[in-house]
């Protein structure tokens, strides 16, 4: 039997070689599908790698509290996509922050409450500017480089804000003399006490682009917006040992504080690297779906060309059957052909995808991410596509009546 398989493989290879252009175009269809999947997986991989490296910079004493995703239904997802704030349904509150702060073993705790507001200055007014509400501990957990001025501290806590580098440029057309000027948020005036240095890191575990963000005290933010939605609470542990016990302790304290509501999760270590936004997951899922559709289209191309091949080689099938090929032999011969097509297509796609990922990495911060999982998924998909779209033409070839096939030319 293995001998016969090798024969089938050789036959299929000869048949493909005879129609170079046609086979190449078919492979190209598969290749484009595979390449887009590779590209997307590689991008997603490099994004979580970016976050991972950020976490390792911050040290492994970081712990994060996030609300459990309540986005289970399609309407919730659509709701999330159509509203600008992706954490509308957060269950975390300011009192949770103080509960955590009181817990033993916690060195620092800072809430992350992002809302989108219109921010005005003497020169410009910017709508939909992300405003981060946090507290003084924030800087202890995550070191942000300051260009001018100071971060929020006990002296200037109220009525003062820190601007991101890009935001400062957008509001005042400068970064040099921004400190001391006032900005207006919902009619309230705030003084700029500091300007951040350029960070140029659009992806972080906080899900915040600091270059574009206005940072202020969480309670002041609560006062002007009316309610505070805390999307995440960052915790710095006092020591790195016993992170699991600390997490347990915090969970217990929070559940008690929230009267039994356990709709949150405490994560630390590598788990944080999963990007915070479920929006990210939805978008990457949708992109993968689109890529998968293009792979299906490529598969249909394989099926189409195999059907043509079967029709063209009607007589050959008849001859082979007459001299002793069983239906199974014919089936295998054509199945091998479609497998070879989809296999070479996916090898092409693998190369193409990584070439694109590499080109993309030259203009974006996303380094191409190669892992054996991605390659394994690719080849598995290949086999599935090859069999799925090759089986029908192969069955069609195998079920040809040899007499009919030969009669056409008699």
């Amino acid at each position, binding site marked *: 039997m293995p001998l016969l398989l090798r024969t089938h493989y050789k036959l299929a290879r000869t048949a493909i070689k*005879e129609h170079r252009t046609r086979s190449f175009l078919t492979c190209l269809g598969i290749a484009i599908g595979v390449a887009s999947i590779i590209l997307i997986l590689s991008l997603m991989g490099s994004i979580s790698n970016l976050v991972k490296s950020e976490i390792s910079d911050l040290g492994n004493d970081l712990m994060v509290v996030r609300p459990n995703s309540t986005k289970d239904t399609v309407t919730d997802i659509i709701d999330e996509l159509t509203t600008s704030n992706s954490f509308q349904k957060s269950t975390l509150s300011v009192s949770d922050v103080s509960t955590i702060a009181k817990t033993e073993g916690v060195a620092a705790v800072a809430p992350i409450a992002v809302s989108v507001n219109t921010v005005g200055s003497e020169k410009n007014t910017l709508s939909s500017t992300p405003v981060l509400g946090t507290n003084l501990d924030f800087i202890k957990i995550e070191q942000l480089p300051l260009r001018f001025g100071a971060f929020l501290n006990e002296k200037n806590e109220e009525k003062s804000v820190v601007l991101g580098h890009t935001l400062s440029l957008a509001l005042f057309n400068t970064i040099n003399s921004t400190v001391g000027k006032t900005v207006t948020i919902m009619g309230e005036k705030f003084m700029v006490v500091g300007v951040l240095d350029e960070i140029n890191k659009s992806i972080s575990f906080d899900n915040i682009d600091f270059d574009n963000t206005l940072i202020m005290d969480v309670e002041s933010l609560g006062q002007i917006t009316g309610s505070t939605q805390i999307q995440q609470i960052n915790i710095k542990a006092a020591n790195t040992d016993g992170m699991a016990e600390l997490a347990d302790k915090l969970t217990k304290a929070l559940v008690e504080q929230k009267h039994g509501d356990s709709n949150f999760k405490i994560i630390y270590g590598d788990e944080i690297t999963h990007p915070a936004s479920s929006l990210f997951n939805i978008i990457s899922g949708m992109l993968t779906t689109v890529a998968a559709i293009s792979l299906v289209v490529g598969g249909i191309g394989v099926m189409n060309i195999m059907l043509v091949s079967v029709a063209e080689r009607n*007589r*050959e099938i008849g*001859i082979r059957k007459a001299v*002793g*090929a069983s239906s199974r032999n014919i089936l295998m011969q054509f199945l091998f052909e479609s497998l070879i097509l989809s296999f070479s297509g996916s090898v092409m796609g693998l190369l193409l995808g990584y070439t694109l990922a590499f080109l993309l990495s030259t203009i974006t911060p996303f380094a191409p991410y190669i892992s054996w999982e991605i390659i394994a998924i690719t080849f598995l998909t290949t086999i599935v596509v090859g069999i799925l779209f090759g089986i029908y033409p192969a069955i069609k070839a195998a079920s040809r009546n040899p007499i009919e096939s*030969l009669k056409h030319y008699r």
Partner: protein
Amino acid sequence: MSENIIIELKGLTKRYGYGDTESFALKDFDLTIKRGEFIMIMGPSGCGKTTLLDIIGLLDRATHGDYYLNGENVAAIPARRQARLRAKKIGFVFQNFNLIEDLPIIENVALPLVYTGYTKTSRLKHASSVLKRFNLEEKEYYLPYQLSGGQQQRVSIARAIVGSPEIILADEPTGNLDSRASFAVMEELKNIHKEGNTIIMVTHNPALTVYATRVIHMLDGQIDTDVKTVADANLPQPVSVKIKKHKPEINLPSDDGKHKSKKRKKSRRKH
């Protein structure tokens, strides 16, 4: 039942269509064929000759009736083993040669061996030795269209006998050939018959009946006349055709084999 009976057809009926369009290609057809017979089947077009060959060659099934091949009822043989039987016991020769255009001559000849478990090298060796017998060793790597009709038909006969089958079925093998090529083809068939093969051949040419040991005239799916020209006792019996179960026996001295492979390369270069 005599051991020498290779094919036995009993009440074979093949019907096409139903009701008003019903027609019979074969009607209650009885025939017993002994090992070593060279049968010519003649008759007007549409009398069921080709259908008969297709059924004997296991390509088609009768509507009613029994077909015993070597004493075994064919209806009970599963499709996969029927395919193996076609590869090992039956050789087909067609009027229009039916060679695969994209394959060189030698691979066309080796085609039946693909399905009987030979390695590629032994397939080609075997096919080469058969082609040599037909004086076509120079053309091994030619494509079918590069040969004349007579040569192509000899190639297809080579393909039919490469697996050392017991039965050769020829459907008007000389129908597309001029008289000279016909003669060459018939001489080859005669030689194969002498080695003890059973040959069943359909023809329209009455002049060829001199080669046969039995001539059957068919009319409307039934036997019209059945004339034996050679007594059963004088039929050639298979002596030299002895096949080992798996590998073919190629009686070539080793240096001869080297010589052959060299020759093959040379012809490829020429091509």
